[in-house]
C-alpha cells in the first residue's frame, strides 16, 4: 500500500500497463512534456516518443487514428486534454469506435481508452468544465468510467486499458491532487462494479466522481443527526451496477442520485427511473442547473452542489 495522488495513480497505472503489454501506447497533445496536468510525466523518457506520442492539435485525427490503430491490434490510450475538446472527435468516437465491431458483424475490436478530464476546476468556464458522461452512456458500444479515488484511478485505468471495448475514461480535474492509499500489485478493479463508501439503512445515495467526496461529507452530517446513508460510488457509469443500487434502494426505500453534470437529461435520470420502475420507491435527483458553467467563482458556485443541499434533499425524502 502506498499513498499517492489521484494524478500519480493514473500515471502509474499507464506506466505499469505499458510495461506489461507492448501493444499499449498513448497519444495526445503535449504528452512528451508530461501532458497538460502532468499525468504523463516521465513516460516519454521511459518509453520513447514512438509509444508516448506527441500529436498535433487534431482531436479528430487523434481519435480516428486510435480507432484504426486499435482495429489492427494495438491498444491506444487517447488523451483528449479536456472532455470538452473530445467534442471535436465525436464522429470518431461515437460513429466509428463505438460501432465498428457491431456494424462489421463482430469482426475486429476497438480496444482503446479515451481519457477525458472532466468537471469544474479553478474557474475554467464554459468550454473547460463540462461533465458529459451521460452523452456517452447513451451510446451502445461504449463503456464509461468515472473514478473518484486514487485507488480507483489506478485500478480502473488498468482495467480500462485491458478491456477490449472502447472506454471513455473521465478523470475529474479537481481530484488530481487528492491523496489516498493505492494497493500495490493488485489486480485491476472490475469495470461495472460499484463501491459502497459507507453502509447505512435509511437512504441510498448514488453518486460518482468528485461528488462522492461531497456526498461523503453530507453523509457524515446526516449521521450526526442519526440518519444512516448507504453511500454508493458508482465508478462505472455504463454498465452501471444495478445490482448494488437496486439492492440498497430495496432496503432503504429511498434513492437519491447526485451528480455534478446538468440534472436535466443527466445519468441520474436513468438511475432514478430504473429504481422507480423496478422498486416503486421514492427517488430524487440532484444535479447542476441547465447553465453553461460560468467563470466568476460565485457564479460557478451556483452550478455546484454543496453537501448542505444533499442533506436537505435527503431530509425531504425521509
Amino acid at each position: 500500500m502506498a499513498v499517492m495522488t489521484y494524478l500519480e495513480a493514473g500515471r502509474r497505472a499507464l506506466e505499469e500497463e505499458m510495461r506489461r503489454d507492448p501493444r499499449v501506447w498513448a497519444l495526445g497533445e503535449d504528452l512528451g512534456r508530461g501532458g497538460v496536468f502532468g499525468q504523463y510525466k516521465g513516460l516519454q523518457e521511459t518509453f520513447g516518443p514512438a509509444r508516448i506520442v506527441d500529436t498535433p492539435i487534431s482531436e479528430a485525427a487523434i481519435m480516428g487514428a486510435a480507432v484504426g490503430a486499435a482495429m489492427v491490434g494495438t491498444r491506444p490510450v487517447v488523451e483528449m486534454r479536456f472532455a470538452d475538446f473530445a467534442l471535436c472527435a465525436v464522429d470518431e468516437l461515437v460513429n466509428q469506435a463505438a460501432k465498428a465491431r457491431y456494424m462489421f458483424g463482430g469482426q475486429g475490436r476497438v480496444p482503446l481508452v479515451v481519457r477525458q478530464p472532466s468537471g469544474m476546476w479553478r474557474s475554467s468556464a464554459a468550454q473547460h468544465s463540462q461533465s458529459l458522461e451521460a452523452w456517452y452512456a447513451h451510446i451502445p458500444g461504449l463503456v464509461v468510467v468515472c473514478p473518484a479515488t486514487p485507488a480507483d484511478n489506478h485500478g480502473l485505468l488498468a482495467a480500462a486499458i485491458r478491456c477490449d471495448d472502447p472506454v471513455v475514461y473521465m478523470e475529474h480535474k479537481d481530484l488530481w491532487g487528492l491523496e489516498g492509499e493505492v494497493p500495490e500489485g493488485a489486480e485491476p478493479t472490475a469495470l461495472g462494479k460499484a463501491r459502497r463508501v459507507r453502509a447505512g439503512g435509511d437512504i441510498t445515495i448514488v453518486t460518482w466522481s468528485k461528488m462522492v467526496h461531497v456526498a461523503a461529507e453530507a453523509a457524515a452530517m446526516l449521521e450526526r443527526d442519526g440518519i444512516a446513508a448507504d453511500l454508493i460510488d458508482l465508478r462505472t457509469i455504463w454498465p452501471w451496477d444495478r445490482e448494488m443500487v437496486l439492492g440498497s434502494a430495496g432496503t432503504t426505500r429511498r434513492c437519491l442520485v447526485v451528480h455534478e453534470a446538468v440534472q436535466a437529461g443527466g445519468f441520474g435520470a436513468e438511475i432514478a427511473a430504473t429504481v422507480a420502475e423496478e422498486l416503486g420507491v421514492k427517488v430524487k435527483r440532484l444535479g447542476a442547473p441547465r447553465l453553461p458553467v460560468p467563470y466568476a467563482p460565485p457564479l460557478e458556485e451556483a452550478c455546484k452542489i454543496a453537501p448542505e443541499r444533499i442533506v436537505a434533499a435527503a431530509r425531504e425524502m425521509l
Partner: protein
Amino acid sequence: MTRPNFDAARMLGHYRTMSRIRAFEEAAEAGQKSGEVRGAVHLSIGQEAIASGVCVNLAAADYIVSTHRGHGHSIAKGADVGAMMAELYGKAGGTCRGKGGSMHIADFTIGMLGANGVVGAGIPIAAGAAHAVKLRGGGEVVVCFFGDGAMNRGPFLEGLNWARIYDLPILFVCEDNGFAATTRTRSLSGGRGPDARAESLGIPAMEIDGNDVQLVDETASGLLSAIRAGGGPRFLLCRTYRLKGHTAHDTAPYRPASEVEERRRHDPILKCREALLLHGVPAAELERVEAEAKAEVGSAVETARRMPWPDQSIAWEDVQDVGAAQWR
C-alpha cells in the same frame, strides 16, 4: 495505338476484376429497384479502374479503408462476392452477418477494414492503421480510398498531416468523380484541388486519368514501391466520373444527359476492352470473362435470395463485452 509495357495477362485480370465489380453494381442496383436491397446503395459504376488498378498491387496482408461507395474496393481486394451480396440482402451469411449493409462492408480476413457511412471518416482511421503498422515494425502498407467530396472535411487535413509528420506507410487515393453527393465539387472547393492540398502538407501527389486501368496500375505500383521502401505517404488523385447518381435512387437530373453520354465513351471497362482487342486478345475471350462475372454475381444473388434472415438474437451480439446483460 498500342501501349508500351502492355501485359496482356495482367490487363485481362483487370478486365475480369472490373467486370465483376460492374456486374455486382448492376445487380445491387436491380436489387434496390426490386426492394430486396434496402438502405442506401452507392454505385461505383464508371470508377472500377481505380479499385482494380490500385488493389492489384496489394498483398493479402496489406490494408485498405474504403468509403460508402466501396463495393469495388472490397471486390478488388479479394472479398467474397457471395458474402457481399448476402450482406446487401441483409442475410445471415453476409460479410457482416446482415448488421451493416452496403455502407459497412468489411472483411478483416483480407485486410479490408471497412467501408464507412461518413464522408472522410476513413482517412484518420487509415492513418491510424498505418501508424500501428509502423509502431510494430511491420511491412504492410495501407491504402485509403475516398472521394473528392472528402477534401472539404476536417479529417482530410488532420489525417493527411498525421501521415506526413509520422512518415506513415500509406497511399491516399482520391477518386475524383466530380460530385460531392449531388453538387459539383469544384463549385464548393477553394484552391487548386485535393492534390494541391496534399502537396501543401508535404505529401508528394500525382494526378492521373483514373479511367485508364493500366495507368492506375503502373502509377500505384510506383507509389506503393516508394512507400514500401520507407518513403512515407503518397497521394494519388484519380480523375473519373460517376456514371450513376449519388445513390441508386438518384437519377442525377442535375447534369445534362449529353455530359453523361460523352463520359460513357470513357468508360474504363470499354477502354480496357479496346486496349485488349488492339493487343490481339480475342473478343471471345473477353466475352467469356464478362459471362463468368455475370454468372458469378447471378449465382450470388440467387444464393442471397434463398438465404435465411439473421436470427433476431444476433442483434444483441457484439455490442460490447463489458455490460453484456444490460444491452436491452
